[in-house]
């Protein structure tokens, strides 16, 4: 199955409505295994029915790729079984850490931009990749402050980890934009020279301006703004392949019809950006 076009994150408020449809209203869904595995009941059966019917990509939230805590065997077993069951062509996680000393924060915390941290993340990515039945992608995150004294830029840190781990890249274009505003750089310059050949998927989402801190927050709680759509359209031809783009919405979740309309808007921009590439 070829994954392309703009998909949507499958979210709880829409489950019953989506399950009742005859066919998927999107090219593919994305779902977090952590929110599904090890559960049962009516809602769980609805989700599993959708995943059996429709194309799905998986995206993890809590493996703490830059952390030190070991992955419990049962957590890995459940993840592997889920990836096999869904038939996802790859699995992705964030370049961040979320737990330390056995305490989980359930937040995507930034890595220090240091060589030690890069070596550590590379080793963790390789270790997880070795256990998964599908290729692994690493996602660039939004960060609001560098952790400790940086030895390199966030861009060079990401580059070093992607190359060192030799893994795919889930390019979150909204995170690039949010970071560019919060840390004052040109996102197109940031993207130029990055290993776009590693991009297998993209994320796109909305963000929120946090007045008190004077910062853009990666909330996934608002519609995607035009500059982020433009950035997606700018980078797609440079990637040169119709990689799938996933619209994320995790807060202030509107009706499914509203999200589907937003997806259509993004799909048009996606197709427009790739017209020359696809017909070349």
């Amino acid at each position, binding site marked *: 199955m070829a994954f392309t076009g703009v998909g949507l994150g499958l979210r709880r408020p829409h489950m019953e409505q989506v399950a009742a449809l005859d066919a998927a209203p999107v090219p593919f869904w994305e779902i977090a295994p*952590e*929110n599904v*595995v*090890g*559960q*049962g*009941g*009516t*809602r*769980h*059966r609805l989700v599993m029915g959708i995943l059996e019917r429709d194309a799905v990509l998986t995206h993890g*939230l*809590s*493996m*703490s790729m830059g*952390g*030190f805590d070991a992955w*419990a065997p049962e*957590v890995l077993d459940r993840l592997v079984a889920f990836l096999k069951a869904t038939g996802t062509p790859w699995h992705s996680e964030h370049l961040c*850490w*979320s*737990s*330390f*000393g*056995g*305490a*989980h*924060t*359930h*937040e995507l*915390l930034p*890595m*220090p931009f*240091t060589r*030690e*941290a890069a070596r*550590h993340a590379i080793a963790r990515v390789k270790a997880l990749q070795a256990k998964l039945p599908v290729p692994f992608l690493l996602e660039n995150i939004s960060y*609001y*402050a*560098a*952790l*400790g*004294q*940086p030895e390199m830029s966030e861009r060079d840190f990401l580059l070093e980890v992607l190359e060192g781990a030799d893994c795919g890249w889930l390019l979150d274009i909204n995170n690039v934009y949010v970071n560019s505003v919060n840390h004052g750089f040109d996102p197109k310059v940031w993207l130029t020279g990055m290993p776009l050949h590693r991009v297998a998927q993209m994320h796109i989402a909305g963000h929120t301006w*946090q007045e008190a*801190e004077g*910062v853009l*927050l990666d909330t996934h709680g608002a519609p995607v703004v035009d500059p982020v759509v433009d950035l997606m359209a700018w980078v797609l031809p440079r990637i040169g392949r119709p990689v799938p783009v996933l619209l994320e919405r995790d807060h202030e979740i509107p009706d499914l019809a509203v999200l589907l309309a937003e997806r259509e808007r993004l799909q048009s921009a996606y197709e427009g950006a790739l017209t020359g590439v696809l017909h070349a």
Partner: protein
Amino acid sequence: MPESRLARLQAAVLDLTLDADGEAFHADPAAWAQTRGLAHADGRALADRRDRWGLYRDLVRTALVEPLGDTFPITQTLLEDASAWPACVDAFLASRTVSSPYYRDVAPAFVAWLADSHWGLERWPFLLQLAHYEAVELEVLRHPDAPRPADLHAEPACERIAVLDPAARNLAYGFAVQVATVEAPEPPAACAWLLCHRDPEGAFRVLELTPHVSALLARSQEGQALGPALAELGADPDEAFTLLRDLRRRGAIQGFRPA
């Protein structure tokens, strides 16, 4: 203290976000960083962006507290009415009890923490039982499905045991937690025997049991046949069997099998 620079930085951020005293960092970031073994430059970098690390503190705490409000509305109301909810949350977060990578496990971690720490039990002796009861609904609703055993009988008999549905919970409380509401969050001190289960459509249901029926189900779960259990409890088999058939019809009992 962690050996590597990376580990020391992550440990420091955990302190910064989960410790109850969030002011210590902001009051003197350099001294705060020194006590955590951070290099001077790393401590200075944290101090330079103290506003942004305050933001991370809010993000982490919000992520961990949101499931509590969703799962424990009555407990939260009770403690908010007594202006004790922030202190409860602070103590819970500082305990670092949340260890599971599954977000759904935050609420059970809160119950486990109440049980271990005895937080608030002196003032609210029912607190743990109330929180436990509030968490049961999600536990029952989300319990993993399992194939129904093939060897079960539809009818109870003296030599058989009753097999509870794996999602069902046969619970005994010292307080009538099932009558507590957001409007009246303090449950009366009265024993309650509750059977929480999924009905055939998968919805959450609560049945109030007599102590005898609750004991009968508990003995079945321990493997004692219904006949001897009823005899020891001094209960009428016909009456008990009628009730057990009803529980099976409701989905709380899967069926019956030889002891």
